[in-house]
């Protein structure tokens, strides 16, 4: 026998206690939806997991109304300390149920269990722990004393990291004192619904978080709802554009986290074995269905052949198959539609003259699968070097000098992520400084931490998630009368101004707001709508 044909080590689905049908989670309860229900399937087997309700306009109304009631009646009146307690409780419950969540996520999304177990779910807990800590420290969020929450946040999340994106959206929103209506992605509604059960378990006040399922039109109805104060969207650039258009002219605050075509730059002095690992995790992590994926590999020309040779050797050891097997490195593509897009763009790459290579690997017959693929001889004008493929497809380009690397890396309508591989610290810093990307990783890739802001330039969106900046996206500065004159609207971003205003107010209210049930500005702001 071959040792490398590891015996199957599937994670058991027995831990799941799924219902055959799921409704919408509105006002603390699961209720029937009025749209046409749909089946959520496992992309690895195409088997139905559960029947899921769809929210129509009426359901969206109910959910937004519930969130508004909860905002005005409960959540905005709670002290930061108490909001933090709920968030800590949610974080602990996520940890307690981590195995179950990991299995459900793998089943519904198609990504390998080792990723959901070791990356997604631990990060979800980390996000809630992190923002739980912020809930009573909003004075330090960079907006001056007593920043206001915004009200009801409408949040629409993608299918590539269903539970993690939920955490990125819900944790800061709740910490800042907002209530939430979240719409999960059509192909991955499952873990959001399990999360709703966790909210019930945590006894979060009714209506503070409402979770809707449905397709794009449900999302559109939600973000266009007149009683929504904040819109946060993660997904494709085209949908993001439509949202920006529809939100324009309203009072809604907007955060968009959209597509990307990240450059992973490998210099000739890179730690070569780790660079290979970084390239692999940059593009094959989550089957490349990552907005910040390092889908464009820029290799210094003098090491191109060696890098490609090593990359191919390493690629041949990746295990493609059952997402629930603990030894699987690359799982299934999330949907038939996504598989079609990846297949089409890859075919175009071939037609345009790039050289296509995949390791030998047998793919399961049922389900949506795409072998990890490398394109060499790619030019900057090829579509596979410009369009976001959102799949396990790497385009390899070359450069000769750092200047050329920077120019090529920046030559994209996107600007979400980039990676630099070099043993020379000064070069890493100099290049990072000139890359127009929201995240630049040095000698690593696809690393996330709740304390680090994440977001894009240009067509990759605006606003930041994570860290203090991610919190500020759900806050507005306090509205207050400056001594004897017009209201002062503090600058959103300029720290010095915020510091001055703090200094101006020696008698700022105490940090603990426990004895201050409903800060007046917040409540009145709510009533205006």
């Amino acid at each position, binding site marked *: 026998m071959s040792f490398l044909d590891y015996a199957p080590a599937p994670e058991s689905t027995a831990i799941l206690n799924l219902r055959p049908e799921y409704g919408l989670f509105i006002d603390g309860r699961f209720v029937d939806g009025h749209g046409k229900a749909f089946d959520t399937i496992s992309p690895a087997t195409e088997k139905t997991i559960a029947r899921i309700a769809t929210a129509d306009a009426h359901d969206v109304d109910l959910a937004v109304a519930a969130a508004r009631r909860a905002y005005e009646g409960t959540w905005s009146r709670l002290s930061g300390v108490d909001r933090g307690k709920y968030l800590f409780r949610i974080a602990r419950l996520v940890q307690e149920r981590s195995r179950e969540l990991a299995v459900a996520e793998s089943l519904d999304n198609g990504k390998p269990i080792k990723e959901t177990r070791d990356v997604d779910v631990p990060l979800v807990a980390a996000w809630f722990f992190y923002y739980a800590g912020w809930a009573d420290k909003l004075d330090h969020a960079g907006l001056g004393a007593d920043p206001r929450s915004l009200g009801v946040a409408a949040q629409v999340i993608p299918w590539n990291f269903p539970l993690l994106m939920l955490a990125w959206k819900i944790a800061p929103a709740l910490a800042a004192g907002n209530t939430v209506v979240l719409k999960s992605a059509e192909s991955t509604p499952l873990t959001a619904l399990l999360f709703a059960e966790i909210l019930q378990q945590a006894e979060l006040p009714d209506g503070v978080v409402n979770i809707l399922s449905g397709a794009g039109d449900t999302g559109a109805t939600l973000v266009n709802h007149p009683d929504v104060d904040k819109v946060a969207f993660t997904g494709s650039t085209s949908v993001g554009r439509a949202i920006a258009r529809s939100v324009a002219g309203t009072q809604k605050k907007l955060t968009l986290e959209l597509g990307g075509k990240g450059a992973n730059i490998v210099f000739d002095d890179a730690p070569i*074995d780790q660079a290979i690992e970084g390239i692999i995790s940059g593009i094959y992590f989550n089957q490349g269905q990552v907005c910040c994926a390092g889908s464009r590999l820029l290799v210094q020309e003098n090491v191109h052949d060696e890098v490609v040779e090593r990359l191919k050797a390493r690629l041949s050891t990746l295990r493609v198959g059952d997402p629930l097997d603990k030894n699987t490195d690359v799982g299934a593509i999330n949907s038939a539609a996504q598989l079609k897009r990846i297949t089409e763009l890859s075919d175009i790459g071939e037609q345009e003259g790039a050289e296509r290579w995949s390791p030998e690997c047998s793919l399961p017959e049922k389900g949506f699968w795409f072998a990890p693929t490398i394109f060499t001889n790619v030019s900057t004008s090829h579509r596979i070097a410009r369009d976001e493929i959102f799949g396990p497809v790497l385009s390899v380009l070359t450069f000769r000098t750092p200047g050329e690397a920077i120019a090529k890396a920046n030559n994209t309508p996107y600007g979400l992520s980039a990676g630099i591989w070099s043993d020379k610290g000064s070069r890493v810093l100099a290049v990072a400084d000139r890359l127009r990307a929201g995240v630049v990783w040095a000698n690593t890739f696809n690393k996330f931490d709740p304390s680090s802001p994440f977001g894009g330039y240009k067509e990759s969106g605006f606003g930041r998630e994570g860290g203090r900046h991610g919190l500020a996206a759900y806050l507005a500065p306090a509205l207050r009368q400056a001594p004897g004159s017009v209201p002062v609207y503090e600058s959103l971003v300029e720290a010095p101004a915020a510091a001055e205003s703090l200094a101006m107010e020696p008698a700022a209210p105490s940090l603990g707001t426990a004895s201050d049930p409903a800060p007046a500005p917040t409540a009145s702001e709510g009533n205006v709508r």
Partner: protein
Amino acid sequence: MTIDTASAERAVAPAARAIEVIGGDLTEKSLRRYLEGIPGVDAVGLEQRAAGLGTRSIKTTSKAWALDRIIELIDLTTLEGADTPGKVRSLVAKALVPDAADPSTPRVAAVCVYGDMVPHAVRALGSAHAAGGDTGINVAAVATAFPSGRASLEVKLADTTDAVRAGADEIDMVIDRGAFLAGRYGQVFDEIVAVKEACRRENGSSAHLKVILETGELNTYDNVRRASWLAILAGGDFIKTSTGKVSPAATLPVTLSMLEVVRDWHRLTGEKIGVKPAGGIRSSKDAIKHLVTVAETVGEEWLQPHLFRFGASSLLNDVLLQRQKLRTGAYSGPDYVTVD
């Protein structure tokens, strides 16, 4: 340290591999330039990769195969100041019959002892002594003023010759870490070449040479990688992590970085070099992580005694317990394996 230009230009001992790879005019300078041109190692990335390999889930038939193979790859070791002929006989008995309750248990690859214990080991093995052959058990001896290596070259060579004459099939030498850290690569190189020469027997055959880098004293992965190249260039048949007398000894990232060198050497020359992590691997779980790392880095064919070994003493009993568990479905306990 000032660089002695005379010694920088001094030709180091000829070693066929180094001449082939670096070029005919092998000098301290050319050796240094070659070693310093090797790409660096990013510690965070290396450790992350090792941790990733450590999460492989090896179950049922794969686990059964792995446990047996681990036994076949063990250099069962006793390296104590208190070693006696009796202790060595007892070690050999365990090597021959690891699990008295299960005759299907494979034998270990070798016993590893101090040089003066070699005759006792050879005698105890009797007809089971493989003497470098394919069947039976080899005798490995540590040499060259093990574990510190702090002795003159003459003493180190005498130590080696002594063990080979007494019947050692494999010599585990230590490099001069002081010289390495001081940048005297030529000296380290020359010593390995000389010890390799001392491994030669009168009949022209040669004891296998394992070169111990003592990675715990080299401290950085860059040094480990550089020392691995140096040891291979100088003619080592195996590169070995540690003496077991310094902590940390064998860790998974260190073994991984050495395996990467071996893989690159194979790619460069087609030649296969062995790797021996030693010290600190006490559980079956750790050993299985090493097997996974070997298989996924250099390939499965390295999982053979002439290309991979574990230097261990307590590991064997843990593997036997795991083996019993697989067979019977129940955990036994430390009293169901023998203490030697």
